[in-house]
C-alpha cells in the first residue's frame, strides 16, 4: 500500500517533469494562461479591442487570456513591459499606431524591430469633428478660419509626437496653423469639443460613434485617399486642397521579437480565425474598423512604413 503510494507519487513527478519540458514546444502551446498587456488605460479604443480579442482568442486557443492595463507614455510603458517579458508567447501586447508614431519623435525606448506583429486587426482613417453648436458648418469654413487666424483654433488630440500631431504639423506647414491640445485620457478628449474646451477634435469615428449617431459631433473632414462609405458626405483632406500623408489609426497584437516561429504561427492562425468570427465582425462594423487581417512580413512592413513616414515628417 505504502509502496504503491510512493510509486504513484514518483510517476506524478516524472509526468510533471515531462509537462515542464514540453511547455516550450509548440505541440502543447499554449498550456497556461496568456497575459495580454493593453498598453492604455481601461475604456479606450485599444482596451476595448484587446478585451474583445482576448475573449474570442480564449475560445480559439483554449486557455484563459487575462488582460492587464499598463498605460502611460503613449503606450510605451506597457510595451517596455512586453519587450522585457520572456519571449515564449505567454505575454502578448497591444501595439497601436499612436505608439509607433511616438517612437519616431524619440519617446520611449522601443523600436519596430523589438516586436513581432501577430496581426493588424483594426485600421481606420481619422476625422476632424466639431461639436454640433460649432460655428463651422463645413471643412472649408474651418480651414478658412485657420488660415486667417493662425494658432487660434485648438484641436483635441491624443498627444504630442503622434499621428495626430503629425497631421496637424503637415496642415500648419500648408498654412493652416491650429494648436495641438493633448488629452491622454480618452473620456476627457471626447468631452473637450462638447464642453467647448477645444474647437475641434482629431479622432477616429469608431471611438466616438455615440456622439456621431446622436448628432453631437459634426464630421468635417476625413484624412484618407477616398471618402468613407459610411460617411459619403464628408470630404477628404485631398479634396480640400491639402497635401497629406495619410496615416491610419491601426491596432495590432504583438509579442517580443525573439518569440519562436512556431508559437507565432499558432497565434497568427488563432488571430485570423478570431477576426473572421461573427462576434468580431459585428464589433468591427460598429467601430468602422473592419479590414482583412494582415499578418507576417506584410504586417511587419506596414509598421515600418508608418514609422518611417512619421519620422520623415518630424525631421523636416
Amino acid at each position, binding site marked *: 500500500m505504502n509502496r504503491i503510494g510512493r510509486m504513484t507519487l514518483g510517476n506524478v513527478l516524472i509526468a510533471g517533469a515531462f509537462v515542464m519540458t514540453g511547455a516550450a514546444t509548440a505541440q502543447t502551446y499554449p498550456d497556461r494562461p496568456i*497575459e495580454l498587456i493593453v498598453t492604455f*488605460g*481601461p*475604456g*479606450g479604443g485599444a*482596451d*476595448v479591442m484587446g*478585451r*474583445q480579442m*482576448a*475573449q474570442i482568442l480564449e475560445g480559439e486557443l483554449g486557455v484563459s487570456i*487575462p*488582460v*492587464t*492595463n*499598463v498605460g*502611460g*507614455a*503613449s503606450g*510605451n*510603458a506597457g510595451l*517596455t*513591459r512586453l519587450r*522585457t517579458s520572456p519571449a515564449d508567447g505567454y505575454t502578448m501586447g497591444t501595439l497601436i499606431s499612436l505608439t509607433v508614431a*511616438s517612437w519616431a519623435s*524619440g*519617446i*520611449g*525606448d522601443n523600436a519596430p524591430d523589438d516586436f513581432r506583429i501577430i496581426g493588424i486587426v483594426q485600421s481606420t482613417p481619422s476625422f476632424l469633428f466639431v461639436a454640433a453648436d460649432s460655428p463651422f458648418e463645413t471643412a472649408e469654413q474651418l480651414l478658412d478660419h485657420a488660415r486667417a487666424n493662425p*494658432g487660434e483654433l*485648438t484641436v483635441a488630440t491624443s*498627444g*504630442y*509626437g503622434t499621428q495626430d500631431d503629425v497631421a496637424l504639423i503637415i496642415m500648419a506647414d500648408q498654412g493652416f496653423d491650429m*494648436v*495641438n*491640445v*493633448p*488629452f*491622454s*485620457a*480618452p*473620456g*476627457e478628449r*471626447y*468631452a*473637450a469639443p*462638447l*464642453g467647448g*474646451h*477645444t474647437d475641434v477634435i482629431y479622432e477616429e469615428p469608431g471611438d466616438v*460613434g*455615440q*456622439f456621431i*449617431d*446622436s448628432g*453631437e459631433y459634426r464630421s468635417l473632414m476625413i484624412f484618407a485617399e477616398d471618402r468613407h462609405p459610411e460617411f459619403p458626405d464628408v470630404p477628404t483632406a485631398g479634396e480640400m486642397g491639402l497635401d497629406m500623408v495619410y496615416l491610419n489609426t491601426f491596432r495590432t497584437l504583438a509579442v517580443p521579437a525573439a518569440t519562436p516561429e512556431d508559437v507565432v504561427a499558432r497565434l497568427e492562425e488563432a488571430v485570423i480565425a478570431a477576426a473572421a468570427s461573427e462576434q468580431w465582425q*459585428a*464589433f468591427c462594423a*460598429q467601430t468602422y474598423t473592419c479590414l482583412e487581417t494582415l499578418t507576417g512580413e506584410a504586417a511587419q512592413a506596414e509598421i515600418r512604413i508608418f514609422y518611417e513616414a512619421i519620422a520623415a515628417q518630424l525631421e523636416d
Partner: protein
Amino acid sequence: MSTFELLGMGFQNAFALWALLTIITGLLLGVVAGALPGVSFVNAMAMALPFTYSMAPTQAMLFLGAIYVGGVFGGSISAIIINVPGTPASLPACWDGYPMTQRGEVRRALAVAIVASAIGGLTSALVLSFAAAPFATFALRFSQPEFFAATVLGLISVIAISKDRPIVSLVSLFLGILIGTVGVDPQYGVARFTFGVPAMQSGINFVVVMIGLFAVSEVIDLIATNRDLRPSEAANARGKVSFRDFWDVRGAIARGSGIGSILGVIPGAGATPGAVIAYGVEKQVSREGDKFGTGIMAGLAAPEAAKNATTGSAMVPLLTLGIPGSAATAIMLAAMMLHGVNPGPLLFLNDPTMVYTIFAAMIIANILMIFAGIGVAQFFSTLMKTPPAVLGAFIILLSIIGAYGVRNNIFDVYVCLFFGLVGWVMKRVGFPTAPLVLGVILGPLAERYFMTSLANYNQDWTVFFTRPISGTILALAAVFAIWSLWPILRARYRSVVLLLAGRPGS
C-alpha cells in the same frame, strides 16, 4: 412618462429575481475585492467584464454597478480593522476609524462606516435618478483648469488633515509628489528619476506605496514593539452600537454626502479626492475638529459618506454624455459599447427602461450594501481575535499579493517592502505618512491637468484664476489653507520658528 413612473418601472425590473441575484452577487464580490488591499474594485470590475458578455446589457450594468458600490465601501473594512486601506478612497477611514479599533470600538466604527457609506451612496443614487441632466451639463463646463483647481484643493486639504504640524505634513506631501514624478512622463514621454532601471519607467504605483506605508510598516511595528492588537474585554464593552451614534454624526454624513455627490459628477475627480476633501472640510466644521485623528466618529462618517456618494453621481456623465470620469465608469462604458449600447442623450430617448432600471438598481444596491458590508466585516473581525504573530503574517502575505496584483509586477513587491521600512521609520520619528500617499496619488493628476491646460490656453497660466469655476475653487483652496494655518500665522515669530523645527509652539 414622468420620472416617478419611469423609476417605478425601473424598480419593477430591478426587483425581478435575476436582477436582484445579480446585484447581490456583484455587491458581495465588490465588498470582498474592496476589502483586500491591492485588489481594488476597478480590478474586480475589469475581471468581471468578460462575464458580462453573456449577459443582457442591463444585467451587465447592474452587475458592474453593484461591484462598484460594494467595492467603494469594502476598502474601509480593512482600513478600520487592520489600518490598511483596501482602496485608495478608504485612506481617510484609517485616520479616525483605526484609532477607534485600537480603543476596542471596532464594531461601532464599522457600523458608522457602513451606515454613512450607505446614506452617501443612496443620496447620490437619488441625485442620479432625479437630477442627471442638469448635473451633466454642469460637469461638461469643467475643463482642464477646473480639474487642476479641484486637484489643488485636494492637495491643500492635507494641511487641514495634519493635526498640529502643517509644515511637516507639507514636506511629506512634496516628497509624495516627487515620488509621483518617477517614470515615463505622460505628456512628452521622457523618463524621469528612473536611474536607468527599466522597471522604474512604469513609475511608482500609489497603491503599492500605500500598502507598504500602511500595512507592511504596521507589521514591522507590531514585531518591534511586541504589542497585542487584540482588544481587551473591557474595551469591547464600549463597542456597543446604538442609534445615538448615527444620530450624533448626522451632520457629518449630510456634508459628506453633499460633497461626494457634487465631486463625483466631475469627470476625473472621483472617490479618493471626494473622501479626502470631505475629511478636510469636516475637520474645519466639526466642534471636535482639533481631536480628529484620535478616533472621532464624525471624522470617519464624513469621508465614508463622501466616497460612496461619488458612485451614483460618477454615473451621471457616463449615462447622460457617454463620458467616463473614472476607471470604474470607463469599464462600464466598455461593457455598454461591447453590447452595442451607446450611452448619451439618445440612450434616455431610445431605452429609458434600461436607464431607469440602472437608477433603481443603484438605490437597491446601496440599501443591500448594509447587509453585505456587515457580513464581510464579520468575517474580517474574526481576524482581530487571532494572535498578533498570525495576524502579522496574514497582513504581510496579503500585502505582497496585493502589491504584485496591482500590475503583476515583482518590482512592485520590492517597492512595497521598501516603503514598509520607510513607513515604519516615519512612524517612529513622528513623520506623517498620509500626506505622502496623497502626493503620490494627486501629484501626477495635477501635473497632467496643468500641462494640458497650458497647451489649451496659449501657455497662459492666468487661466486658472480668470476662469470662473477654476478661480472659485482655487479661492476656496486659499481660504482653506489660511483658515487651517491661522493659529500659526497669528502666533509670534518665535513659535513659527519652533514649528519649523518640528516642535509645536505653546
